[in-house]
């Protein structure tokens, strides 16, 4: 606490940090924002992220139904979890959802984003229309598509030449396809927005130089636009990975994890164990697995892509 007081009493440096003085680790000895500045955020993060995480870690070694006190059972939940076929399947399904989500959404949102960054006629209106799914809640979207896909009274009922008997949600492949499609419909506008913003940041001088050198639109896209969007692609992909791992409402409402356990992804499995079977121990163990996996994936993406070095794509300009 003495540091805090001392820091407060010290007059501010109008000209920023004094020249020639090495920036100290804590920063407070040169009058720059120190750890204390981050205290409010850190306390909230500790209270609402770290503490629940610790509580979940503790709970994963207990059996608890919400009634009475949790009973310590050692590694029992964890042993059961690794022997549970639904859990193993759910991890594969989650991975599949992430990969399919990235594969379907990324190309589409890059193209739309780059297009929306231009100044064509009607662009603003079409972009606004395309933005609409993002304004709807996931629950509303799921209920809407559920009704549209009713095999007897929805789209499949009218297009039997394409959908056969309309049993789309009754087969695993069909149910997965529906979830991926609805995810695409729902989230592409968001990623489009990221790419639109990023594409507008690309200096026009690059394109002007390229046209002088004789590069066409396609060549410009692959040689200028895509490389310039690299950091945005990484951001967008990390968001998709985390979003894919925690997909929940659409599964709950559209397929309820079915047919059978055909779309029981890990996040849904966690909900089912904790709030339907009231086995908060197992639910907590699954939650912890999710935390570890999503942290590892984000970390790997950042490392492999060189994103952590924060190198500007405008170097040399």
């Amino acid at each position, binding site marked *: 606490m003495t540091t805090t007081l001392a820091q407060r009493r010290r007059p501010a440096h109008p000209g920023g940090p004094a020249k020639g003085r090495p920036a100290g680790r804590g920063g407070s000895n040169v009058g720059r924002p120190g750890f204390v500045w981050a205290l409010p955020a850190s306390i909230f993060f500790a*209270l609402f992220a770290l*503490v629940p995480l610790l509580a979940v870690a503790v709970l994963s070694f207990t059996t608890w139904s919400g009634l009475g006190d949790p009973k310590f059972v050692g590694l029992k939940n964890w042993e059961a979890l690794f022997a549970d076929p639904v859990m193993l399947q759910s991890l594969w399904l989650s991975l599949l959802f992430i990969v399919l989500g990235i594969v379907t959404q990324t190309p589409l949102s890059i193209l739309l984003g780059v297009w929306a960054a231009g100044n064509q006629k009607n662009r603003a209106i079409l972009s606004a229309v395309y933005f609409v799914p993002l304004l709807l809640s996931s629950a509303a979207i799921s209920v809407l598509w559920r009704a549209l896909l009713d095999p007897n009274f929805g789209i499949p009922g009218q297009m039997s030449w394409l959908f056969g008997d309309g049993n789309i949600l009754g087969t695993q492949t069909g149910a997965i396809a529906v979830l991926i499609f609805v995810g695409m419909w729902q989230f592409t506008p968001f990623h489009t927005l990221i790419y639109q913003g990023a594409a507008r940041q690309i200096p026009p001088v690059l394109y002007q130089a390229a046209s002088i050198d004789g590069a066409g639109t396609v060549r410009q896209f692959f040689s200028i636009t895509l490389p310039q969007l690299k950091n945005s692609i990484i951001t967008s992909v990390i968001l998709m990975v985390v979003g894919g791992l925690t997909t929940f409402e659409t599964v709950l409402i559209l397929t309820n994890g079915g047919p059978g356990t055909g779309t029981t992804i890990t996040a849904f499995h966690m909900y089912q164990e904790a709030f339907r079977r009231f086995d908060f121990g197992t639910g907590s163990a699954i939650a912890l697995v999710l935390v570890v996996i999503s942290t590892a994936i984000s970390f790997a993406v950042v490392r492999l892509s060189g994103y952590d070095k924060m190198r500007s794509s405008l170097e040399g300009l």
Partner: protein
Amino acid sequence: MNHHGWVARTIAGSAALALGLTMAGCSGGSGAASRPENEIHVAMYGDAGNTVEQKMIDTFNATSDVKVVLDKIPGAEYQSKLQTIIDTPTAPDIFFNWGGGSIKNFVDADLLLPLDDFIKEDPQLKDAFLPSVFETAVIDDKAYGIPMRGTQPVMLFNNSKVLADAGISNPPATWDELLEDVKILKDKGITPIALGGADKWPTLMWVEYVYDRVAGEGLFKKALEGDTSVWESEESRKALGMLRELVDAGAFGTNFDSVKFTDGGSPALLASGKAGFELMGSWEYATQQSSDPQFAAEVLGYSEFPKVEGGLGDEDNLVGNTNNFYSIHKNTRYPEAARDFLKLMYSDQFVQEQVGIGNLPTTTNTEKFLDKAADPEYAKYQFNLVKEAPSFQLSWDQAYPPEATVTIHTAVAQFFSGQIDEDGFIKAMQSL
């Protein structure tokens, strides 16, 4: 000063503090003293029927110093919310439930007040209700619930117009007649039976009835008591074989796994004439009435589940939601006031109000008011079914504690769609 050490200590300290608070919150279990003064809180399944609950509360509050407060919880989340608050200081004094498995865990955790002493003082608290219904909330020979709202037996509904067009004069009385009707309707290009398979519980209704007809009510009672060998019995396999035969005969069409009851899919199949039958709880009538009153009044037919020749179960046995109940939390501050409130559940006013909104209470005075029901004929038919039923089996997913629901629902859905066979189903049920 070492900043890193300070940071680590702060985080560790606040984490430990907050963790301690969390754990203290978890252990819960407060006494009556910490509860609000002069208030009784009722946790209630939130839906359109709440108007009647509120009216009864107003009646009670008019003469009582201790006021009853209705806390509505959205229906789909009711059981989850209840289980997470029931062992905390904010637990309700009185709460809505389905009897049976829905309160078994609470009884085991010693959270509920046995009502036997109240019943001794006022025998009406038990005698005013039909015995088969009252039994549902009796656990380990102690009464824990007073029936409220209404009974909801499962019946075989039909579209009488579709049946007449197909030359079927009467709803099937036997299993063989049902199979015949299925064939006739299928040959005409109509889905014989509408099934909201994506909801899973409508599928369970078929399993419950066939088991009851083939093996009698005893099989499930034994299973519930922990004798899992009954699932391997000859009757169990026979019941599964019959269900398989029905599914394979195309009784439910091919896309029932994509159809829901809850979004109106399967009731619409019946109402639009694309299906001939639907096995559903008595609320089917209200569901159809809300979308097409004329269809409900003139075309919608209903009958008992067909009997099975050679089956051990009585042909008048019922399955479904026997009733809803109010139970009292052990830590309530005002047990006498709670008791007096529950006495309203067999009053004339209560029955009249419930009948008025289409519910069917199971009090002995209900019959007096059936003429005032929305459809007196339907109300009387149902009431007699319940009154005459030798056994009224609570739905399996309500009879077992809630943690079993996922397993049961998944097993019936996978069995119907052919993902698991008889052995797979037996194994799943034995895991409970």
